[in-house]
């Protein structure tokens, strides 16, 4: 029924490939493993017709990815860290920061980490996050504030640097 309504509401469908990188980054932030994240992103795209007439296709795809990640977590609660080496890698400060951010995000609660990922890694608005998580936009705004504060506190604890927003 929902698909039929979508068909009526949307004149032209969208190519799911447009959002593959958003899905990939979200999965990468959740799983911390490039190969698994790429697999999830591919599975999500392949599960959809092209063009796809769904409303809010990006949100829908992220929802599918969330379910797939949850399934994977259930199957493999602690996936092993896989080291896949890039010989040309240089340890510059940007790379250090990225690794540190990942580490700090890993110390936050599931709710805080999720909302920060969706806001900053995927780039969703509060309303979109609310739609995805089944919460009100105001509640997401408040959760985001708390998540930022938690991130800042953890960052300061680890690096002795203050965080502002």
């Amino acid at each position, binding site marked *: 029924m929902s698909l039929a309504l979508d068909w009526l509401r949307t004149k032209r469908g969208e190519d*799911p*490939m447009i959002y*593959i*990188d958003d899905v*990939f*980054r979200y999965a*990468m*932030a959740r799983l*911390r493993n*490039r190969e698994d*994240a*790429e*697999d999830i*992103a*591919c599975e999500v*795209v*392949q599960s*959809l*017709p*092209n*063009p796809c007439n769904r409303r809010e296709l990006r949100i829908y795809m992220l929802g599918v990815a969330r379910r797939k990640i949850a399934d994977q977590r259930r199957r493999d609660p602690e996936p092993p*860290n896989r*080291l*896949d*080496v*890039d*010989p*040309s*890698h*240089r*340890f510059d400060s*940007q*790379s*250090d*920061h*990225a*690794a540190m*951010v*990942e*580490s700090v*995000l890993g110390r936050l609660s599931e709710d805080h980490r999720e909302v*920060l990922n969706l806001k*900053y*890694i995927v780039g969703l608005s509060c309303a979109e996050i609310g739609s995805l998580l089944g919460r009100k936009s105001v509640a997401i705004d408040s959760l985001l504030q708390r998540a*930022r504060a938690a*991130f*800042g506190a953890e*960052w300061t604890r680890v690096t*002795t*640097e*203050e*965080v*502002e*927003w």
Partner: protein
Amino acid sequence: MNKRNIDELLLTYRESMGTTRKLPITKPAVQAWRRPAYSAAFVVVLMASSAVALWPRNATAKRFQDMTMAIKNARSMVVTGQMQGHSHRWRTISHTMYQDGKVRCENYLGTPIESVSIWSGGLVLTDLKAKPHALLESASNYEGSPLGTDGDGLDYARQLSDEGDAGIERQVTIRSHPPVNGRATYLMIMSRPKSEETGLSYHGEILVDKMTNLPLEIYVGDGGFNAPTKNQNHWLFDFNPHLDIRQFDLTCAKPIVRLENAEQELTGKWSSSLLDYDGLSIRDASVCPDGTIWIAMSRKAGSRGYPFTISCSNGQTYLRTHVLVPSDCWGKRHIYSLRGDQVFVAGFSPLHVGGKLPERVKVSVAKPTVVNAENSSTIQSIYVNELDAEPRTTKNVTMGPTAILDLRKESGKLPSYFVALDLDHFSPQIPRNIWLDRALASERRHDYRSAAMDREQAAEADQSFIPWLGEAELKKAIKLYRLAGLESEAKRTETKLAFLIQKVNR
């Protein structure tokens, strides 16, 4: 206290993820009225594919010949080397410039080996970023030049474009390509399917300027232009640019050490010996601030003597962590010798760091009693294969005399004469090797806590060499901490390992 913006931090994190390399193939729903149009397109594609397959072999050979000739006729060249890694971004790893028989190679691969080398007028100036000096030497010290076996700079481009030519069968096809920067181009594709024997495949693509026959870009990997895979190589060519000739000057902001002069000076310094035994002469004994004692020796042809053990009044146990020869692992034509005698340096590191540096050292020399032809040929085989860092038996050696030598104190991390022995490029890996030998020795003594700590130190030292090597050391350290019953230390090291993996995986 520094202030960071949360947006900036999380954006850095987002950027570091790159984009997905794996692209799914989706099946579009085909509407009935479109089928005839697709069928027509299929026929066109089929005809085009047949044309590629039926392209005469001599035509592709001629294209190669034309390109080689065009390269040979170029006056100057800049090649930018790029490598694709995990982040799906191309990283520039080198710049190679050529003009009038002069070559400048800039290598950005990693801090320890980040370097600039300039080949000009029969001389080579090497500036390793990690070193406080640059080294000037004769080009004849090297086997060939950095750009090709025949020393011709432009031969480098030819070799890159002709990769896989050495007796390896490959399929070469030529396809049209859209213009690049207003230049008409075509694409040469060289591929070989995965070999069942070696498991290796090959795929190279050369984008060629139709007017000049000069290559513009070369990709080599197991994918293609639009199929990014790990560790693809990519070279961008610019032929006949106007290059500032001053780039090829043999000058450097750092002090320049002339290798020949350094060698002569060292020969003068090592004219007398501190101990002689069966053709072996100890020339120098020094101690570095980390406590490592370095014994420099020369040995006459046919001699099999070598320093067996050392001991100091500080009661420390010493491990023979290194046996180095001049220009070690460098593959040079010229290797320093002391008036024809082979030179080598043995490094002895204390098992545990700290404490007062020793003033004197007691050195015992020995020679193997039973030596077969295989391991008598080189000193390395005797040390590495038979004795490792610690001699565990005296069964197969004849002990020689013992001498007490005064130790010369070195201020640097390594002996100053390493420059004259052309060991600059080898030195970044020495600290990690020392920690690993310590770890192994502690493990043999069932001192798992020390062994774990030494592994951790080796991982730290890897940060100044090849950072991802530290992963194996930290994993081993975790196991060792657990063996020692130190669960909290194991957990701490696990956090450290996770951080390293995150860093490396970016």
